[in-house]
Every structure is written in structure tokens, then in C-alpha cells.
């Protein structure tokens, strides 16, 4: 489902967080949002998820304004995948994934056969079906992130919003998780993902959205817009973009020069 954001402005107690953001994300695209801490990425995501009231401008998902949609209706269109953290409540993986289906249930309903089926399907998609009966506190951080993604798939929404899905993950797990994100975009999901690593954008994103001081300063394919000057502008750090020819193609990466 396409996301369309037009002239989005938001201020919080006199401070302008978003100062007119415009962009579109199409079905099948993995859009990576870059920007330093406090650039407005989280606020932007909250607006798209309908969690933030009081913004100006338009946020449309699949052609409807998020402010006109009910919670339930919104949940059927857009799912949120937070950073994985150490859980206090040790649910089984199955129960954790099942929670994604709650939007389809009535107030007093519990998940039934149909919901269990879609949870099983989601776990299968992410290769964690053998973990179904484990506790979420007992699996690795990478697996926990996959559980959160599976939960979003069980929610059955076409748009996935990911808040730094690779935070707190080790090097191997970062790539493992991102590979799944990429695969989901190829399957037709619209994926909007914030990341702190330009290399992740090079490797996995179709599109880069650079956010600075509440404005979009670059919007395009990583090859086109993600260069040394953009990294300098975003992070205030001098870096060099290099190309490495490998057997799977030419891969770009960043080397910091400071």
C-alpha cells in the first residue's frame, strides 16, 4: 500500500519537529530513512501510524487520511515493528505473534483457529516456526526481532513501519533481519525503515529518505542521493563511499575519514 505524506508539519511545545515533509513510498519499496538522533524520524513514524495527534498536512495510506481511520482500520493497513528489547513478560513466541491478530477480534474475543493459522504462516515466513513454544526471553535478540516482524505480518497490513530494526543486534543478526525486510518488500509490502547505518541503505533499500531538522534533504535511490556530501550534511562526519566488486555485484560501503 502506498504511503503519501504531503507538507507534514508538527510542533511540540513551540519546537518545530517536522517542518513540511513530502514523500511517497510505493508498494514493494523498501524506504530507508536516515537522519541523526532528533531529526524527526520517530515523530514522522508516529504520524504515519496515527499515534501522533495534532499535526498539519496530510498523511494518506492507500488513499485515506490516517486521521479519518479508526484504530482497528488503521491496524489493518499499517503495522509497527519496534526495536527488540529485553521483555519483562515472557510470552511464548506463538502468543507474541498471535497478538498481531488482535485487530481482527472483538472486545471479548480470543484468537481462534483462523488467527492461529495466520500466526503460523507469519512464523513460517520468517523461519521461526520451530521456536513457537519457546519464551521470547529465551531466544536471541535477532530472533526476537524476527518475532516482532512476524507479529506485524500476522497483523496482515500492507505497510510496515520499522523503527531501527537492527538496533541492539550483532553484526550477523543485523544482516539476517535486513535480508528478511528486503524479501518482504519484494513480496509487495511497503516497508519504511529507519536506520543509522548508510551501508544498510546501500545494501537493502530501494530508496533513501534523508531527514534533517524536520525537512527532507534528499529523496531517491541510494546510488543517486547517498553520497559523501549527504553523509557530511546528515551526520557532520567526513566519510568516503567506496565500491567493491564482488561475485554478487558491486557493493557500496562507507568508510569514515575523521
Amino acid at each position: 500500500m502506498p504511503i503519501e505524506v504531503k507538507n507534514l508539519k508538527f510542533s511540540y511545545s513551540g519546537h518545530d519537529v517536522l517542518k513540511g515533509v513530502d514523500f511517497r513510498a510505493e508498494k514493494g519499496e523498501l524506504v530507508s530513512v536516515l537522519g541523526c538522533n532528533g531529526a524527526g524520524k520517530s515523530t514522522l513514524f508516529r504520524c504515519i501510524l496515527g499515534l501522533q495527534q495534532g499535526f498539519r498536512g496530510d498523511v494518506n495510506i492507500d488513499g485515506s487520511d490516517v486521521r479519518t481511520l479508526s484504530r482497528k482500520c488503521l491496524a489493518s493497513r499499517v503495522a509497527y515493528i519496534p526495536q527488540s528489547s529485553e521483555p519483562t513478560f515472557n510470552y511464548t513466541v506463538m502468543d507474541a505473534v498471535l497478538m498481531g491478530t488482535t485487530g481482527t477480534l472483538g472486545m471479548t474475543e480470543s484468537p481462534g483457529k483462523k488467527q492461529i493459522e495466520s500466526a503460523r504462516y507469519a512464523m513460517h515466513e520468517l523461519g521461526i516456526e520451530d521456536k513457537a513454544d519457546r519464551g521470547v526471553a529465551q531466544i536471541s535478540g535477532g530472533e526476537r526481532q524476527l518475532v516482532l516482524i512476524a507479529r506485524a505480518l500476522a497483523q496482515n497490513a500492507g505497510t510496515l513501519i520499522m523503527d531501527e530494526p537492527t538496533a541492539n543486534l550483532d553484526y550477523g543478526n543485523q544482516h539476517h533481519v535486513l535480508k528478511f525486510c528486503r524479501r518482504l518488500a519484494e513480496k509487495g509490502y511497503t516497508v519504511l525503515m529507519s536506520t543509522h547505518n548508510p551501508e544498510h541503505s546501500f545494501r537493502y533499500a530501494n530508496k533513501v529518505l534523508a531527514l534533517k531538522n524536520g525537512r527532507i534533504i534528499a529523496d531517491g535511490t541510494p546510488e543517486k542521493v547517498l553520497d559523501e556530501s549527504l553523509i557530511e550534511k546528515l551526520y557532520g562526519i567526513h566519510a568516503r563511499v567506496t565500491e567493491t566488486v564482488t561475485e554478487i555485484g558491486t557493493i557500496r560501503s562507507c568508510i569514515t575519514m575523521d
Partner: protein
Amino acid sequence: MRPGAGVLRQQMKETMDERQKKNNTGLKMAILALAFLLIFAVSCTQGRYVISMEDFWRMLASRFAEMPQTWPESAETVLFSIRLPRVAAAAIIGAALSLAGVSYQGMFRNPMVSPDILGASTGAGFGAALSILLGMGYFVISAAAFAFGLAAVFLAYFISRLAKTEHTLAMILSGMMISSLFSAGTSFVKLVADTQDQLPAITYWLMGSLASIKMQDVGFVLIPVMIGTVPLLAMRWRMNLLTLGEDEAESMGINTRSYRAVVVFCATLLTAASVSVSGMIGWVGLVIPHFCRMIFGYDYRILVPSSLLFGASFLMTVDDISRITTTSEIPLGILTAFVGTPIFVYLLLGGGKRNADRS
């Protein structure tokens, strides 16, 4: 090996695992229910006046069907006007406090939270102390305790709604404020109370006891407890989502604000009603949910009904100890702490990790 065979075997194993898991939960639940019934029967028959098991069941049945009277008159008096009200009250209050505890713990995303977190108990304590000071009768004391318990929580809740900080944090903070305000109030009442009879009465009330429970008290506590229990029981799946935090739950299609209000309302009703007839009974709401998590895991679909049964069984047992072991009864508030503290220390030091894998 054919590639299909492995997959098939895997699937078969999975469905078998699942069936086994379900059976396990069902079996554990059945044992718990059986234990509840057994404890109920033993509690009703044992005491200073022992009733035989046979007479007990016959007397119970005689209330629903025509039965020839084969038991002594005194047994009937003891059972229906003294023992049954007390045992029933213990069961209802134990269940209510456990449910309130497990609900608050989910809502505050903190398994160390107890039902008095928002000030229900201290509010009730103040209400009771005040009405004892004013020389009120038993019924007014209970009613005032109930009303002040509710008032304390709603005060805390509304203050937190006005606060600009994160909602659950604001609630915990304003709960603490209101709690300490009411306990200061209680201290003041104790200070000015007559030391001959009022002060001991207040002190005993605050320690918690079921010694003076009558059948009408059971009715008094049962109605609010039912009103509080039914919604929580009906919406128990959604409680799982509340433990995830606001943004996540909202993004999955839940209106957390209204749901949280329902939970606060129901859990407060449960706590205030319980405390108003029994006085302060700590620990039940904190410890029982932990027990249930160790046995049944974290899913609120099972946690809610098991907490009800476990809490009821626990408080009946503790009350039995209170009235059977010593002639001068040990207040429940003291006994539950004696039993609860070692358990809690054990949990805190890592015993809870036993529930590591539920598979």
C-alpha cells in the same frame, strides 16, 4: 529420504507438541480446580467444631434439594452462620485481590506491582479508621472503607490524567502521593483516637481479619467483585497487549486509553471491596500472579482464571492457619506476609527463571 517425509514428520510432531501442551495446561487447570474444591471442603469442615465431610456435603445439598436431616442442629448453625461465610469471604477476597494484582501488573508492565499501587488499600484504611473514630457501626465502617478506597484511586487517576509526563509513570507517582496522604491521615486519626477501645479497633482492622465476617458481608463484597471480575475475565486476551506498551498496542488496533480505564476501574473495585470487609491483606495480589506465571506461563488467557482459583485457594488456606493453629487468631495481614515474604525473596533471587522454557 524423500524431502516431503521430513516436513510431514515435523508437522506431525508439531501438532502433537501442541496437543500435549494444551493437555498439560488443561490438566494443570483441572488439578488447580480440584485443589480449590478440596481446600474449600476442608476449610468448611475443620475448625474448633469439626464437621464430618459427609455431613458437610449433605448439608450443602440440602440447600438445593430435599434431604432427610442426619446431622446435628449445631453443625448446621456452625456451618451456615459462621464457617461458610468466612470461608466464602476468604475465597472471594483471595480471588479478587489476585485478579486485581495480575491486572495492575499487566497494565503497569511491571510484575512487582501490587493491588494497592494506586492507593485503594490506604484509602480504605483511612475510611475505616475515620468511621471507627466517629463511633460508627460495622456496616458503616465497611461502606466507608469501600468508598474511600474508590475515592483514593479515582483521585490518583484524575491527577495522573492532568499530568504531562508519561501516563503510567504519572499514575504510579500520583498513586504514591495519594497513598502517603491517606496513610498520614490514618496516622492522624490514630493519634486522636481514644486509646482504650478505638485505637486497638483501628489497629486490628488495619491488620486484616476475617473473624467477624457474616453472611451479609459476603453479599456486600460479592456484588462489586462480580462487577470487577466479569469484564477483566472477558477481555483477558487484550491484557496481553497492554503489557507491550502504548504505541505497540495502539498500532495493533487497541484503544489503550479506554481499555486502561476499564482495567483501573475493575481492579480498583476488586481491591476496595475486598479490603473493606477484610481489612488490609497484603501480598496476595503480588505473590499469587507470580505463582501462576511459574505454573502456567504469561498468557493472560490462562493467567486470569488461574489467578482467581489460586488466590481463592491460597487465602482460604492462610485463613485456616489463622483460625485453627492458635486460639487467639493471628491477623491475616501478618500471616500473608509471613508466608509471602520468603516466597517473594525466592522469586526475586531467580526462582522465577524456572519458567524459562515452557515447552
